[in-house]
């Protein structure tokens, strides 16, 4: 690290990647690959939608109220995990663990709501095989749901690990889990209007 970059780091604003923890940089690289995955899928959906005349009729069968509740749940879980990150940085083990459990529980609520929504749609005969719109709908929300599930498993395991006496060694992982979880939240922030409100 040069003297200049050291002074920037001391001021709280790192100028190069080498001044950041390697795990944080790795997490951002991973998120960049995830942007490609979801960016490609959302882009393909927008293009298909234009090509098929808007899919206005199909979208009337979606339940925007359940989706709005799920948005609220996910946004609240984002607040919980950023509070866990703050507690971890402050060295407060109990608060960190509590907020991580709250985040995982809210993620579970999101998935239960989504499963309920799927059950209503399937009951009305709308399956991935029904039309191109429903293929995209189940594909995009399903992929997002898998990410939520992976996040729940990670955050739950982290919450358990944070309860151990040697938790200081893994404190930084709370931030990485947070980055992943907020990314999942941001993806939903765009999926929600794209599928339900437009």
């Amino acid at each position, binding site marked *: 690290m040069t003297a200049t970059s050291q002074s920037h780091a001391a001021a709280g604003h790192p100028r190069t990647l080498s001044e950041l923890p390697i795990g944080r940089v790795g997490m951002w690289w991973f998120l960049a690959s995830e942007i490609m995955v979801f960016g490609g899928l959302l882009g393909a959906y927008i293009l298909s939608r*234009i090509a098929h005349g808007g899919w206005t009729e199909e979208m009337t069968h979606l339940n925007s109220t359940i989706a*709005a509740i799920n948005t609220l749940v996910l946004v609240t879980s984002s607040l919980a995990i950023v509070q866990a990150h703050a507690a971890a940085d402050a060295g407060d083990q109990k608060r960190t663990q509590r907020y991580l459990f709250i985040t995982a529980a809210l993620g579970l609520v999101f998935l239960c709501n989504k499963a309920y929504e799927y059950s209503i749609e399937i009951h009305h005969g709308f399956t991935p095989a029904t039309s191109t719109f429903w293929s995209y709908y189940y594909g995009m929300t399903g992929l997002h749901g898998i990410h939520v599930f992976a996040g729940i498993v990670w955050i739950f395991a982290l919450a358990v690990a944070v309860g151990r006496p040697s938790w200081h060694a893994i404190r930084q992982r709370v931030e990485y889990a947070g980055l992943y979880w907020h990314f999942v939240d941001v993806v939903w922030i765009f999926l929600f209007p794209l599928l339900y409100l437009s």
Partner: protein
Amino acid sequence: MTHAHHNTRLYVWIWGALVALLVLGMFVFELHLSKTTALVLIFSIAAVKAFLVLRNFMHLQGVPPVLYAIVGIPLLLAIAMVLTLMPDIAFR
């Protein structure tokens, strides 16, 4: 190890703003405005929500500029994919 500067009270305010924007988005949806106006408003609200999460919860401020490139380039590629294929789909 570098730590983010946390302001837990600000986080609650940001959460409040996100909830308010969610309600505003639903309100715009229920207004049954013209398609273009509704799309512009709804996606502007979504962009503001994403910005608030990225800036405040993911601490994407005061980070090395190359980190913006790591995140921005795949985003630009995804947008470029839509824009380059758009003429083929919209004007065929």
